């Protein structure tokens, strides 16, 4: 590995193009009603991006409200027991509200205020983006409506309560699979109806331009910090970076600062769910093909007639049929690679991390842990970084359902 690296690679990204395309992906596939509002949002964002006052307010909130920078932690026991790579963990789980989602929500809330929008709609899957949205709306005195699939409300009920306690209205969505996809559809229907007064606070690097670019930019701080921190600690760049990919916001956030570092492998982990058949997973790259959903063209799980497939993952935040368009483009370039971890692998990885490092990860992030641990034994002297995008408190009910033996009084500590 080269060890003479510039301290940052902080230039403005060259993608997407002016129409929001990452190669053939991305773009704007929405009803005409939303086109002018998207143009206005893009304009407002491009101005804010260059406005030192906006950037300085955002930086202050990220530091003093959200808790940035987050630590880059050397997971010694996990490294030792995995028997190979030296593993670091980027602790986005320590941010206020418990996940990386707050980075983007603070940015978009500032933007909404700048545009004079007083009403916010958001979708949520696992509830982390919903909680972060409700939080920033409380902070800025904005009305907040969060759409959430009824299935996700059931499996993430703690987050439903948190959102309500923060003053948001949580609207259950009963259509389709009653998960993230349906929540996004319903949020878009609200936005299309109330577009004059409302900002749609989309929570992942998905949707029509400028969302994939804007959400990515608000999360680039993850990678910029990580790059600086690993150079300080190890005086060299990592060999591999692991991040889970639902829409792909935490992954694109940590990957971006390393795109120019060709020796750094960037590995996205999708939800392998229960198996490889359509409907049992959310692994878009292995099981999907390019298509359009919710405003963007990217890899999509769809049937032979172009209908969007149902998806499954134990983690609500990865349970979505389309991957963010920039991931599709980076993969085409050969710059990033994508694999999947099953429900079971993610659950086991969460338990391992809890036992060895005292960190209970979000189920989403546990997918990234699983892949890093899988690769570690053959990677002696290599440096790995896992982006731990969220903490696992919200998943306690699911962990209990799946790790029933831990409720037994005399359970034995498993051999690790």
């Amino acid at each position, binding site marked *: 590995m080269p060890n003479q690296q510039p301290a940052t690679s902080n230039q403005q990204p060259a993608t997407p193009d002016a*129409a929001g395309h990452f190669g053939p992906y991305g*773009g*704007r*596939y*929405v*009803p*005409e*009603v*939303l*086109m*002018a*509002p998207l*143009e206005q949002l893009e304009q407002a964002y491009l101005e804010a991006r260059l406005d030192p006052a906006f950037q300085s307010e955002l930086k202050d909130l990220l530091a003093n409200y959200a808790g940035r920078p987050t630590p880059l932690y050397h997971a010694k026991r996990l490294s030792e027991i995995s028997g190979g790579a030296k593993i670091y963990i980027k602790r986005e789980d320590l941010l206020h509200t418990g996940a990386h989602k707050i980075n983007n929500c603070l940015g978009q809330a500032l933007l909404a205020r700048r545009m004079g929008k007083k009403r916010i709609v958001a979708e949520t899957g696992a509830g982390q983006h919903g909680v972060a949205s409700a939080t920033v709306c409380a902070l800025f005195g904005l009305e907040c409506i969060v759409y959430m699939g009824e299935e996700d409300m059931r499996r993430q009920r703690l987050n439903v309560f948190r959102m309500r306690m923060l003053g948001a209205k949580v609207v259950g969505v009963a*259509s*389709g699979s009653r998960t993230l*996809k349906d929540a996004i*559809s319903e949020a*878009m*229907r609200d936005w*299309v*109806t*109330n*577009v*004059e007064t409302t900002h749609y606070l989309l929570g992942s690097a998905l949707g029509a331009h400028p969302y994939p670019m804007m959400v990515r930019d608000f999360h680039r701080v993850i990678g910029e910090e990580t790059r600086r921190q690993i150079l300080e600690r190890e005086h060299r760049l990592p060999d591999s970076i692991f991040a889970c990919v639902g829409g792909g916001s935490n992954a694109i956030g940590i990957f971006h600062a390393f795109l120019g570092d060709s020796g750094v492998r960037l590995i996205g982990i999708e939800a392998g769910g229960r198996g490889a058949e359509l409907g049992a997973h959310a692994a878009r790259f292995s099981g999907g093909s390019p*298509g*359009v*959903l*919710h*405003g963007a*063209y990217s890899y*999509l799980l*769809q049937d032979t*007639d*172009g*209908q*969007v497939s149902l998806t499954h993952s134990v983690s609500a935040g990865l349970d979505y049929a389309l991957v963010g368009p920039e991931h599709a483009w980076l993969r085409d370039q050969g710059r990033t690679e994508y694999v999947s971890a099953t429900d079971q692998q993610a659950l086991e990885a969460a338990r391992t991390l809890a036992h060895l490092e005292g960190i209970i990860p979000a189920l989403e992030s546990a997918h990234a842990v699983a892949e890093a641990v899988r690769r570690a034994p053959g990677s002696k002297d290599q440096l790995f970084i896992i982006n731990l995008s969220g903490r696992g408190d919200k998943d306690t009910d699911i962990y209990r359902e799946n790790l029933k033996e831990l409720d037994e009084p005399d359970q034995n500590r498993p051999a690790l």
Partner: protein
Amino acid sequence: MSQTRIGRLFERLRTTERRPALIAYITAGDPSPDRTPELVAALERGGADLIELGVPFSDPIADGPVIQRGSDRALKAGTRVSTVLDIAAEIRKRSEIPLLLFTYMNPVLHYGLESLARDAAARGIDGCLLTDLSVEEAEPYVGAMRNAGLDTVFLAAPTSTQRRLELVAKYSTGFVYLVSRTGVTGERSTVSDAVTPLVNAMRRVTALPLAVGFGISSADQVRTVGTLADGVIVGTAIVRVVEQNAASADLPAKLEALARELASGLPSKNP
């Protein structure tokens, strides 16, 4: 490009009958594919001049709950893109009513733009409208449709800027679909105030016929909108009747009566 049935319809209405068109939306395959041709025939008997044939999509973000449920019923009944094309061919055996495919981008993209254009034209379809396809992304689609001699209808909305209205006019043939208000499909008790300014703004940039839809469900509303526009589009009210009478043998008669009632609102335009 020679005129499609859509172009000929609007020309006839303008020069001979001097009235606006009644345009009826129905989801193909709702409640089942075999019933759609008789339902379209009933709408035509009642006075519909043009049929928007909805191709069901799993994630219809521009539609309200009634049309969402119609799409669900059609998909559950096994309706595929190819099924809708076959339904069109069946309708075409007995009728020359203009047919406009009405759907979302993904099913068309997945079928293949060129293949869809070719197969649709071969079955007597006259044009296509994709709700979530912006003019910015429309170049390959418009090319494929034009090559097959099909019209491409695009939406204009109350939020559209002048620049966007000009783009919509440039890419549209047959007619332009004006969305009466921001929001999803569904009935409303009053006609939106946004219609008049939108019609006027669009008239300034195109000579194409203008049809207005979203929220229109009664003969009174047809009359109000019909005095302004060249076509009045009704969708949700029709799908609601399909929903409420799905199992009934009276469904065609009910749809015919609804179309007749709506058509009774069409104003005649005397010079």
